[in-house]
């Protein structure tokens, strides 16, 4: 069986800076795949390239067997692929309800999008309480929920979540991950998640890719990488000599 999402030799540049240099990865139907890597490794760029937010210089991105068009975010969204971006990007001046509705407008009819709104709201009781509040007034955790809910409104089969833990208290991060797991169970979602650190990921992910300097350095199942040593090495690019290097191990571990 072929992968649901497959990137092969993807290259992306910002002017003269090469952000992705021949990146390849795969996500299978129903999997939770995690992309981890340090600051500036190219995690967000990978997701933006998939979602059509940046131009791809070379390589192929296939979703459910078809090649995704480059730089056509609104068409890619209609194919069942949705992005929860880094920093959440809720529409701050729009209400919670309006933020969610935006995702539902591309559904074929109003009744269906109303039903979707009902169902999505069910996953996030906290949002229901702030229904008419401007999204900009929500707490970081609530904004993260809203951003996930908004992505669900587009009726996706694969959701990409960029650093869901960014700037959130650990307890809230746990809640966010619980909801993501619940969504996989109940909605049959496939998930691609970016994180800077691996410690939570090892519990939730099926497979892990480590990215550094615009390319995949290591990949394996969560079980294979459980002890964290290989991840640490790939993450910092030390090869085998992690112990002597005296690296700030907190970041990766």
């Amino acid at each position, binding site marked *: 069986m072929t992968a649901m999402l497959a990137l092969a030799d993807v290259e992306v540049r910002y002017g003269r800076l090469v952000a992705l240099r021949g990146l390849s990865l795969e996500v299978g139907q129903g999997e939770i795949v995690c992309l981890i890597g340090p600051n500036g490794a190219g995690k967000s760029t990978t997701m933006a390239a998939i979602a059509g937010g940046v131009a791809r210089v070379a390589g192929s991105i296939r979703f459910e067997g078809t090649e995704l068009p480059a730089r056509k975010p*609104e068409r890619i969204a209609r194919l069942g692929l949705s992005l929860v971006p880094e920093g959440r990007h809720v529409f701050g001046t729009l209400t919670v309800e309006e933020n969610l509705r935006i995702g539902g407008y591309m559904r074929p009819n109003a009744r269906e999008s109303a039903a979707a709104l009902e169902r999505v709201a069910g996953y996030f009781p906290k949002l229901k309480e702030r229904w008419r509040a401007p999204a900009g007034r929500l707490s970081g955790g609530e904004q993260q929920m809203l951003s996930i809910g908004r992505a669900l409104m*587009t009726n996706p089969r694969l959701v990409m979540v960029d650093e869901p833990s960014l700037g959130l208290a650990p307890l809230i991060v746990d809640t966010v991950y619980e909801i993501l797991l619940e969504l996989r169970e109940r909605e049959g979602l496939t998930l691609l998640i970016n994180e800077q650190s691996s410690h939570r990921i090892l519990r939730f992910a099926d497979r892990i890719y480590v990215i550094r300097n615009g390319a995949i350095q290591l990949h394996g199942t969560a079980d294979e990488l459980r002890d964290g040593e290989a991840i640490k090495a790939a993450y910092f690019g030390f090869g085998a000599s992690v112990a002597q290097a005296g690296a700030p191990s907190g970041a990766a571990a």
Partner: protein
Amino acid sequence: MINFLQNVIDALSLGSLYALVALGIGLLFGILRLVNFAHGDFITIGAYSLILPSTNVVATMVIGSWHWAVLIPVVCAIVVVVAMATDVFVFRPLRRSSAPTLMIASFAVSYMIQNGVLMMYGARPKAVNLWSALTTQVTIGGLREPVLQIVTIGTTIGLMLVMSLFLKHARWGVQMRAAAEDFLMAQYLGVRGNFVIGLAFAVSGILAAAVSLLFLAQTGALSNVMGVPLALFAFVAVVVGGMGSLPGAVVGGFLVGIVTTMLQAYLPPDLRVFRDAFTFTFVIVVLLVRPAGLIPSRSIAERV
């Protein structure tokens, strides 16, 4: 007192024209980061569309002589087509260009329209008589006001109400606000970027058409640069109100109109020729105190 009240109504009437122009400019700025100087020329086109294209000094009304219930939608349609064509042929190919590039392109469009009008209609200003019945005066509690002033203020309030209802409740309105706040994010959620932008151009075209008719009915004169000062003052209004904020554009428009009218009325006669210099001094003071404008747009504040 009566005199002062009359000045207030004059000020509100001028201010509402500026507010309508500022709304048209502010709407496109919010979504596209485009400072559209050609907006004034959309107004010019609306006004010229009333007469027969010819270089004769005497204007021959064609559309201008139709019943208002037909005239208004036809002029709106013409300006909307011009505005949307500008988008398709000029701004769409520049979608990923920087804000300064877009602004320069809008200058180019502006000059093209001005010179196109010059070629088709000749260089001399033309007198036209649109809706002369509206210049009759009514007396309200001792105030004698031309009906036109009241129609202008009423039209502006009406258009602003319709527009805010549209932006607040219509599905395309909500998508427009989302796109104005974070264009790429809206696209990630399936909002059709080009359609929303085209719609914004259409709305700005309707606003320009309304101004062209109200303004022409007031001045009775056509000239190929008639829209330029309107766009300039409206641009100032947009900056004073807060770039990218629609309530700001309206407030700024009224404020600039009020300041201009009041300076005209109350400056010593010797200084009146310098009225605009005083207006702009006032603008600079406002911007020194509130650099982001009176009602800064949240989305822009976050961007910086």
